């Protein structure tokens, strides 16, 4: 087996590559301790601004995975986001006539029970959601 390596045209570049990699610094990003920078266009958790909402219900009608449900919040019908259903396509932000739904770069949404994944629209607080 050993001599096959000698007869071929060129030495496999992997030998040099592995050596350089062996001595060079590893590429790993130490995530939990170093926060990663996310490009600003990233589609993370939605920010819902209740003052701008005219409760027209267009976001819940346009959502591909019906993740937005219109619920009564002191008299008016507001969108409630089911983050477990949501596919973060931001069609709701695009259909909303009033920029009431904005994008954020927040992506750490893991949680051990489903209740955290429901973003309820509370009155006059800028970021929806109770987690």
């Amino acid at each position: 087996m050993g001599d096959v390596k000698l007869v071929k045209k060129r030495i496999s570049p992997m030998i040099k590559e592995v050596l350089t990699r062996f001595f060079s610094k590893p590429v790993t990003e130490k995530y939990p301790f170093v926060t990663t920078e996310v490009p600003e266009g990233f589609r993370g958790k939605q920010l819902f601004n209740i003052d701008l909402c005219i409760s027209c219900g267009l976001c819940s009608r346009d959502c591909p995975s019906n993740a937005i449900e219109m619920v009564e919040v002191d008299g008016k019908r507001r969108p409630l986001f089911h983050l477990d259903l949501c596919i973060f396509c931001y069609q709701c932000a695009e259909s909303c006539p009033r920029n009431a739904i904005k994008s954020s770069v927040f992506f750490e949404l893991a949680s051990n029970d489903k209740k955290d994944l429901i973003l309820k629209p509370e009155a006059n607080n800028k970021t929806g959601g109770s987690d």
Partner: protein
Amino acid sequence: MRSITTWARIKSPWVIHFNSGACNGCDIEVIALLTPRYDVERFGIKLAPSPRHADVLLTTGVVTAQCAERLKRIYDQMPEPKFVVAIGACACSGGVFKGNYSVVGGVENIIPVNIYIPGCPPKPEAIIDGVVKLLNSLKEA
């Protein structure tokens, strides 16, 4: 003695990944965790070849009718201190495909789920964040 075993369990959670009907968006993110850039081996997470060796079951994908039974069988094969992480909107609740005829929707209908990671697909960092939260909840339990 108990604290050492929990320490050991936290420090070396072996993982097995089963795709029960996913569009493999989440699967490539799960496998991307092993690549140099994210490298979950820092936490001692290793991809175990068979359910026998694994502690944590990473499921992705909306459970299709055919896969439901497989998922149950894999879950039973795993030795006892086992945990389930549902990755991606499909695994959490069926996502875009919820309500289709051949879709059971959501992993929780078949096996108990410890951690839900929403996102379509969630960023690898989000999956790490989910696993870290699982390990921390282990510490308190």
